[in-house]
């Protein structure tokens, strides 16, 4: 074990970074694909159906207990993936070929880039809690916002390059919607950073530090997660997150009832599946950011930080186990959040476009500003 670790840390930094990044992508990409199966299963269960449960690889069918995986649709997922990869990928004759092919690639890049600055968990080394993160930079959340908002370019590109009216309408709606809700989203997280950055200290937008401020033990002030201190912020961020990830009830760019398929009407096969996976990546990263900001990240319960739990389990001295514990708790929170996303999708009908704009500009934005002013004053009084 230690020789592998020594060999690994002996590699050049750049190579190590590439390996780490590849590893994260290799987890995130299938996880996003698995979300599509989760979506199908959850929709089925909500609608009183079993969902996809027939597919099984013939050479695995003899294994006892494999039917559990079959019933969960795992092989259907593989079959879908294979189909999307190998089926004919037509490019319609009337599109702008270069941008048409560029759009799905552009959609994947921000989706897989934002994860770099999001801590995926934490581990304890020599009694110190450290983040598991690809790029531990101080800009943190700002980088997430900056990069994830690039995702809208793929939708605009796809809609425009498709050279067809429904994709175009979908992309116009998407750009308007994303811009509107980004404002509220950014304003809603400002109170969190006003609170954790006391004047005169080293300022940070790092998500790890946000979780550290929610890692108090017992009944300390900082053991309560920010969702309880700032419920309105959390609520606005949540609503904006739904809008930013184009999820129901805000899935204007796709609204298949009035726009056929929205921005990806002209897409099929692998390119379409890239859009799909990118959407789920955004969802996963967005859920992760929400959990870090408002739900205590990798801390299992309010007042029970990861370090304390690791002490109780007697694994505080083993960095690997504490890391796995931290990742496990965080992944559990993100997974339940993804479930919430899907639960909402199969519950709510879609808003009308004017309602989306109304909510975004006339309700959510003033609320976010009022929230910011209130917390700015409150924090000024408390931290004085």
């Amino acid at each position, binding site marked *: 074990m230690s020789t592998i670790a020594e060999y690994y840390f002996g590699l050049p930094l750049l190579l190590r970074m590439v390996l780490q990044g590849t590893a994260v992508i290799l987890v995130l990409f299938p996880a996003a694909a698995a979300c599509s199966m989760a979506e199908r299963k959850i929709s089925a*269960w*909500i609608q*009183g*159906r*079993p969902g996809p449960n027939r597919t099984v690889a013939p050479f695995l069918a003899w294994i006892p207990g494999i039917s559990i995986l079959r019933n969960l649709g795992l092989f259907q997922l593989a079959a879908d993936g294979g189909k999307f990869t190998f089926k004919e990928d037509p490019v319609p004759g009337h599109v702008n070929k270069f941008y048409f092919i560029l759009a799905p690639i552009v959609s994947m890049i921000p989706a897989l880039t934002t994860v770099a600055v999001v801590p995926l968990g934490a581990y304890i080394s020599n009694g110190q809690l450290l983040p598991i993160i690809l790029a531990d930079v101080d800009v943190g959340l700002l980088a997430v916002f900056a990069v994830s908002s690039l995702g809208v370019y793929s939708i605009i590109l796809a809609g425009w390059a498709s050279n067809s009216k429904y994709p175009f309408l979908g992309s116009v709606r998407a750009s308007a919607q994303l811009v509107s809700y980004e404002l509220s989203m950014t304003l809603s997280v400002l109170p969190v950073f006003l609170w954790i950055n006391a004047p005169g200290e080293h300022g940070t937008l790092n998500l790890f530090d946000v979780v550290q401020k929610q890692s108090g033990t017992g009944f300390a002030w900082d053991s309560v997660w920010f969702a309880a201190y700032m419920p309105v912020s959390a609520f606005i961020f949540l609503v904006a997150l739904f809008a930013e990830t184009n999820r129901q009830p805000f899935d204007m760019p796709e609204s298949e009832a009035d726009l056929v398929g929205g921005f990806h009407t002209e897409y099929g096969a692998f390119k379409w599946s890239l859009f799909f996976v990118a959407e789920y990546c955004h969802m996963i990263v967005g859920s992760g950011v929400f959990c870090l900001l408002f739900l205590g990240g990798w801390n299992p319960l309010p007042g029970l930080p990861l370090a304390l739990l690791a002490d109780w389990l007697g694994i505080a001295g083993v960095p690997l186990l504490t890391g796995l514990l931290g990742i496990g708790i965080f992944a559990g929170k993100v997974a339940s959040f993804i479930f919430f996303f899907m*639960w*909402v999708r*199969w*519950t*709510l009908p879609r808003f009308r476009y004017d309602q989306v704009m109304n909510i975004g500009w006339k309700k959510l934005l003033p609320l976010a500003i009022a929230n910011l002013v209130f917390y700015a004053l409150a924090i000024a009084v408390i931290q004085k």
Partner: protein
Amino acid sequence: MAVITVERKPLTFAERTYLPQIAGGLKTTLKHFFAPNDTLEYPEQRPAIPPGYRGVPTLVYDPHGREKCVSCQLCEFVCPPKAIRITPGEIPAADASAHVEKRPQEFEIDMLRCIYCGLCQEVCPEEAIWLQNQYSTTGYTRADFVNNKQKLYELGGTLPDPHLKWDKKLAAEQHGNAH
């Protein structure tokens, strides 16, 4: 007629935030999430067929194994889509049921034409043709969908019918009181 003016109350603040309704909807879907499925795993589980169901038309034997059909061709005549084609045939004198005189030599029902109306069953004076419970017919060619006599009797089986009209008629004839 009195006109009733319905008072349309403006939405309350809670309603305008959508939130109570969203919470209610989430509660409903969560209830369904944990509820058992409403569906059948079809090929393995079959639906319960209600009595009087009109499935594939079939021919039946009587309890003594005699073909009930006497090839009177009423069903062929009444069949609205002309799905039935009967070739009548005589029963040879050596046969046990020679007194019945006729039975179909060939009896074909084209299931691509059949509309499952049940008129054949209704019109049959011998209660020989029955629409039974089978509802799923498959095949690879058009010919596969034409049920011939053998297939129809396979599907139909025996009708547990105690009347035995023709046996009574034969007995009456032998006692010399034929009508």
